[in-house]
């Protein structure tokens, strides 16, 4: 197949990938979009085979490795529980990163195969592109591994900070640039390995100081990196499909990070530099412990809800941890039978990744037209009878509006406090991730339900 014809097919697959993302603008067109994505991928792979035209023994091995990976991927995709989606996505990002690194290594060791010149004499432009792809790929890989470990709970979600962290990171980042420059002028393979090693190291160091609840930003950011890595390799291979895709994924991840940061009213750098809330914890929790709290049981909650005419449910990460989405849906079904209007309100940063809560509710068969985003529903709290907060905390804290001293001041919150009454399922009075107390717990019209989210929801359903 001539290079021009294959280039046109790569362009087509790039366009299909654009359509795949375009489809996600509404749930109705999303499945079709996914189909376009698959089609684009099939075209890209087929064209690559045809353009090489080498169907020797090597070809069989390509198919074998493709099949091995495919089977593993398919197995994971069917087995993974929806609550583990953030870990899965982080894991997948690490694979894209590592694949980019491997392709770059391969191109560096055998530049002839890629038309990039010969060993020790690789075209300068290609070498720069390759170094960028490899370096960003390595950062994506090690960063995603840390994100994965933190989300999985293998590594503590608490930020890990040490003295001199920021100067050290800055030093490594500068040395990446210097090594890349030296690599391009000397073509030394030692420098190539050093570049990879320090890139792995910086990926690791960049993510360890970031805490668990900032994971939505981290995952989006790594999503973006995986795109830039792919684009870097795309330039090396002079492949349009890869360049288009890399740019799409890169900007997609960047936009998601921006949305997540805005949801917390924090700047991107503030999140990346990490260590949020660690200092405030001790002072605020001490002087507020004496306040009275009204706590209730499932019967009280059921009574309140039975007499309501409209209820808004506010899910958070706690719901995912307790796997309470199905129990919640059963409770809502019972409420609906009593002609009570129930809607769901989702804060942009609820959960551990963008859209996490929406997926869990969808899994529990909650129709997506009952689920609303912050801007859509926030005015409705004033007219609702009951707000049912399940596993969320900081995103409802009125201190974000009233207390300029609070670390979350300015963060957009769900106006739960405007409801006639608030039900709060929580395991204890402990402050949320930000380490600050929530005034909502001590309000006259708040009833605290101290229990596991799933157990409590099931008990309420029994009492309805």
């Amino acid at each position, binding site marked *: 197949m001539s290079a021009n014809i294959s280039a046109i097919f790569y362009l087509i697959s790039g366009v299909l990938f654009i359509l795949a993302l375009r489809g996600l603008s509404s749930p109705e067109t999303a499945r079709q979009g996914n189909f376009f*994505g698959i089609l684009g991928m099939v075209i890209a792979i087929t064209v690559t085979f045809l353009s090489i035209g*080498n169907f020797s023994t090597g070809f069989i091995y390509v198919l074998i*490795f*493709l099949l091995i990976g495919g089977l593993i991927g*398919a197995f994971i995709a069917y087995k993974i529980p929806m609550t583990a989606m953030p870990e899965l996505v982080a894991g997948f990002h690490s694979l894209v990163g590592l694949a980019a690194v491997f392709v770059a290594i391969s191109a560096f*060791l*055998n530049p002839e195969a*890629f038309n990039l010149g010969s060993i020790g004499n690789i075209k300068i432009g290609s070498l720069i592109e390759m170094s960028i792809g490899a370096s960003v790929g390595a950062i994506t890989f090690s960063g995603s591994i840390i994100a994965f470990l933190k989300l999985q709970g293998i590594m503590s979600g608490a930020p890990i900070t040490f003295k001199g962290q920021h100067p050290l990171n800055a030093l490594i980042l500068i040395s990446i640039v210097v090594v890349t420059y030296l690599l391009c002028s000397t073509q030394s393979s030692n420098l190539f390995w050093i570049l990879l090693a320090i890139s792995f190291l910086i990926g690791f160091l960049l993510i360890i100081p970031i805490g668990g609840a900032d994971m939505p930003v981290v995952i989006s950011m790594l999503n973006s990196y995986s795109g830039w890595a792919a684009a870097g390799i795309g330039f090396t291979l002079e492949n349009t499909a*890869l360049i288009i895709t890399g740019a799409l994924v890169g900007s997609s991840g960047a936009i998601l990070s921006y949305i997540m940061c805005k949801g917390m009213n924090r700047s991107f750098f503030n999140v990346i530099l990490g260590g949020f809330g660690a200092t405030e914890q001790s002072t605020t929790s001490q002087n507020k412990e004496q306040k009275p709290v009204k706590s209730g049981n499932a019967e009280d909650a059921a009574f309140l809800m039975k007499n309501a005419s409209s209820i808004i449910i506010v899910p958070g990460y706690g719901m995912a941890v307790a796997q309470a989405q199905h129990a919640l849906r059963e409770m809502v079904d019972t409420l609906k039978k009593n002609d009570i209007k129930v809607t769901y309100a989702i804060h942009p940063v609820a959960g551990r990744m*963008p859209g996490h809560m929406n997926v869990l509710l969808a899994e529990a068969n909650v129709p997506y037209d009952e689920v609303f985003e912050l801007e859509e529903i926030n005015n409705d709290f004033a007219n609702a009878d009951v707000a049912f907060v399940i596993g969320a905390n900081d995103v409802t804290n009125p201190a974000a509006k009233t207390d300029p001293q609070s670390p979350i001041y300015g963060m957009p919150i769900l106006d739960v406090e405007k409801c006639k009454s608030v039900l709060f399922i929580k395991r204890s009075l402990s402050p949320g991730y930000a380490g600050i107390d929530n005034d909502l717990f001590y309000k006259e019209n708040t009833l605290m339900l101290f229990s596991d989210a799933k157990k409590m929801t099931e008990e309420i359903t029994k009492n309805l």
Partner: protein
Amino acid sequence: MEIDPFIFRLSIFILSIFIGYYVVWSVTPSLHTPLMSVTNAISSVIIVGAIIAGLAGNSESIFNTSSIFGFLAISLAAINIFGGFLVTQRMLQMYKKKKKNK
């Protein structure tokens, strides 16, 4: 003077960033998780490079250092392609509208 082909690729890259910007802003927030898994899947089109690398070995030695990295990259990317598209499919199937007869 002729224009370096790199400039054309750069143009495609820059324009694609803009397309990405507008397309992603129009994605509904409730589908942000499927957006991440599908971007994951499509960025694995890097498999194209992996295949070239894997097939670069000559007929006497299919496995040299370069092609081994290629084969490994093929598997990694394939995990992502299959895993990414299938898990997206699985998620999207769960998004349902309210049934009207209820």
